[in-house]
């Protein structure tokens, strides 16, 4: 560990080492690599880290929430005297397990599920705090945790066969109208934009255009990340293009058009309306396939460039040709969702670093190619990109 740390410092060179930057590995507490890998990726998503540290600076003495624990951890890394080393994220993991029964064990979990849960929890913390600040009398009325929302959503029949479907993304689906007809409280909270929304929130709009009268109905969906299907020998660009589809609904599937007052053919389009400042792409590599009870891993080769734009943006999108830079990759190694290992690759200043629990290595960017996936279907085990973090390069 120590040898590795000093070697990293040597490799980067003391004159090259970015000022105020710390590369710290995270100790594994028994199958916690799914947590460590996501935390590292998030730590190196600059807007997110800045906001977390800002929170820490503003709230010195606070009751112990998950957000507070995360802020402590990030602060702890950011204020280390040494440039490299290891840290045990003990308090954070304990807190997370306490709050989330599902993760309260020593099993391997899905890093994506963790990411979704974490972002939602943080958002909850901020909202609770905002609400507490505004209305002190009404304060601790416990709001149903998001986890319950999710687990109930997962049970809807059309999502049972596909793991990690959109519903798992911690999305607040709002069918019917852009702001939904959820419970009053839910709507209130959703309308309040937190910085978590500002960073991760993507709005996907689904348009239904009547081919008879050309009237358009659209519904918006708020997502913290996009879960895309993977196909063999494709690029993430193609996966995104498949996510944003255009299809014609005709024949027996005709939809009722209010304007025409009859069943009509419709064109269905999915477009991205709001481009987030950090675009998180989840590759749906774990899928239930008919005859198997457990999800199988799709090791398909999906290439992802260091730069990205989204093609299918809606006409009213604010910044449709926003350019993204790859900031971090969470890599899954192994054969299945509940086994194997996670680590992350992040870009920090001019360097690419690999964070594998307590180990940190500087890598050549060409090494990323190794995590695109496999072109042969024979091998079951693979090291593949699983969650991609693209950060918007906005003109400053």
């Amino acid at each position, binding site marked *: 560990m120590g040898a590795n740390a000093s070697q990293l410092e040597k490799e980067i060179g003391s004159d090259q080492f970015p000022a105020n930057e710390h590369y710290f590995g995270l100790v594994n507490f028994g199958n916690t690599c799914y947590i460590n890998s996501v935390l590292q990726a998030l730590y190196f998503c600059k807007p997110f880290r800045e906001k977390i540290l800002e929170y820490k600076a503003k709230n010195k003495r606070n009751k112990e929430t998950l957000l507070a624990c995360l802020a402590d951890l990030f602060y702890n890394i950011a204020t280390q005297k040494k440039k490299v080393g290891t840290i045990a994220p003990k308090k954070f993991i304990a807190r997370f397990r306490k709050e989330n029964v599902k993760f309260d064990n020593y099993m391997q979990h899905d890093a994506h599920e963790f990411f979704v849960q974490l972002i939602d929890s943080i958002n909850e913390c901020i909202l609770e705090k905002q609400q507490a600040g505004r209305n002190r009398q009404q304060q601790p009325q416990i709001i149903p945790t998001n986890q319950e929302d999710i687990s109930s959503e997962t049970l809807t029949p059309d999502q049972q066969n596909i793991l990690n479907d959109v519903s798992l993304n911690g999305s607040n689906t709002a069918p019917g109208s852009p702001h939904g007809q959820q419970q009053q409280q839910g709507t209130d909270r959703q309308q309040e934009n937190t910085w978590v929304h500002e960073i991760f929130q993507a709005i996907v709009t689904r348009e239904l255009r009547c081919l008879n009268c050309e009237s358009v109905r659209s519904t918006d969906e708020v997502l913290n990340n996009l879960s895309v299907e993977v196909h063999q*020998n*494709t*690029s993430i*660009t193609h996966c995104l293009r498949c996510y944003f589809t255009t299809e014609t609904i005709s024949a027996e599937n005709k939809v009722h058009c209010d304007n025409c007052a009859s069943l009509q053919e419709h064109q269905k389009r999915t477009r991205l309306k709001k481009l987030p400042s950090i675009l998180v792409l989840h590759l749906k590599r774990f899928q239930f396939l008919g005859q198997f009870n457990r999800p199988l891993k799709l090791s398909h*080769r999906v*290439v992802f*460039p260091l730069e*990205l*734009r989204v093609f299918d943006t809606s006409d009213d999108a604010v910044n449709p*040709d926003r350019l993204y830079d790859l900031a971090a990759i969470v890599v899954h190694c192994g054969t299945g969702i509940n086994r194997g290992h996670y680590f992350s690759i992040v870009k920090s200043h001019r360097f690419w670093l690999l964070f594998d629990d307590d180990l940190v290595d500087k890598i050549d960017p060409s090494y990323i190619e190794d995590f695109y996936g496999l072109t042969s279907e024979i091998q079951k085990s693979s090291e593949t990109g699983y969650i991609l973090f693209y950060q918007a390069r906005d003109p400053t």
Partner: protein
Amino acid sequence: FKTFNDGERLIDKTKVTCVRWVPGSVNQFLCSHHSGNMYLYNDELICTQDRPHYQLFKEGEGFSIYTCKTKTTRNPLYRWSLGDMAINEFAFSPCSKFLAVVSQDGFLRIFNFDTMDLIGSCRSYYGGLICVCWSPDGRYVVCGGEDDLLTIWSFSERRVVARGAGHKSWVTVVAFDPYTTLYGEMDGVVMHNEESYNRNNYNSTERSGKVRNKPPIINSRPNSVVSDGLNATCYRLGSVGQDTLLCLWDLKDDYLRQSYYRPRSSTVVSNVGSDGCPSNNTIAHSSSLSANSTQNCNKSSNHVKDANNSTGPPSALSSNSLTAKLASLNFVDRRGGDKTSDKDHKRSMSLAGRNSSSNLHKKDSRSNNCSSAAEGDVSSPSFGSKSSVGTSQCPRMDECPLLEPLVSKKIGHERLTGLVFREDCIVTACQDGCIHTWCRPGKQAGAALHSSPSPSSAGISQPLAAGGTVV
């Protein structure tokens, strides 16, 4: 047998990405590296085992060129440095005067190889550019990259004129098929290059290859196609990618000439008119060109004359001004009467629908030509804003025509890494080391499948689409 940069890799330690003989030279070759540098070597000079000391020779926006600081000439003769991102491929123009370089930073850069001037550039929509090639007449440069797109750049207009979307992953090789490109003759009759004609061409390049007495790395695209006074009207382009797809595209010349930025620069059409082929004039004095083109708008006869005097198609570098004259005449002819483009309609199946609408554009822009000729020109050679989307170097998706492939066919299980068009076949290579040779269809097959006036124009597409004919 000689080696360069061997031993301690004193010249460059990173991997070699592309090597080509410098056309027209007996002993020079250019070699690009992952480091973002290209080196010009002379194979008659031995590579000494001492570290080269460079001195700056020439500098431009985004590049610098160095020579070795020695009394005697030594290898490398020059080092071209294009930043620290890998150079992925480069290609000399058919006239061998220009060099197109694509790199991982997403830029296509076009240099005048001899004067070492950067004369144009464009950018991928995003991600690195992987491959590049020139149209057989040197008018267009096509590159493919990590945005899954083809980017088509016009030499004369110095801008991206179209993009091609059809690949599902990164595009690894692009190549023009000179044998199925359609050419218009000076009398306005479109003629597909006959086999006999082709064979002549082929032989001539082979011969020139022998003269040079070099390994077959030589960029042996038939350069002489245009020098017979023929004008390409529909280019056939092939591309392969990591998606295991072979895509074939028809690039219709008059379609590519449409100005897509309606409000800003409908003028570009007029510029193309003045130099049907890339003009030397433009490179040296862009301001004088703008003067020219304004003039041209006023009098079209003047226009032809100008083109003769001031421009020479790079593809016919050695040739006489007669060629240029014919080419320009031909062009004016074609624009005058739509006889030819009517025939094109029948022939090009992919763009027939679009073409009809694009003819409208053409008429529109023609009427606008005179008024805005000057301003259109101003925008073209500015490299300052090249990185930002929405410029002529990187138009937004809705600012630029998007082409679809004529044919798109999965031809393997591994990603494709090579594509060569030959007279009788198409050769593809893939990552697992297999090389496939695909038969071109016989004339009979073409006649049966196509109702187009000239059966031989049917192209290679059909059998491939039907399942492929492997040899």
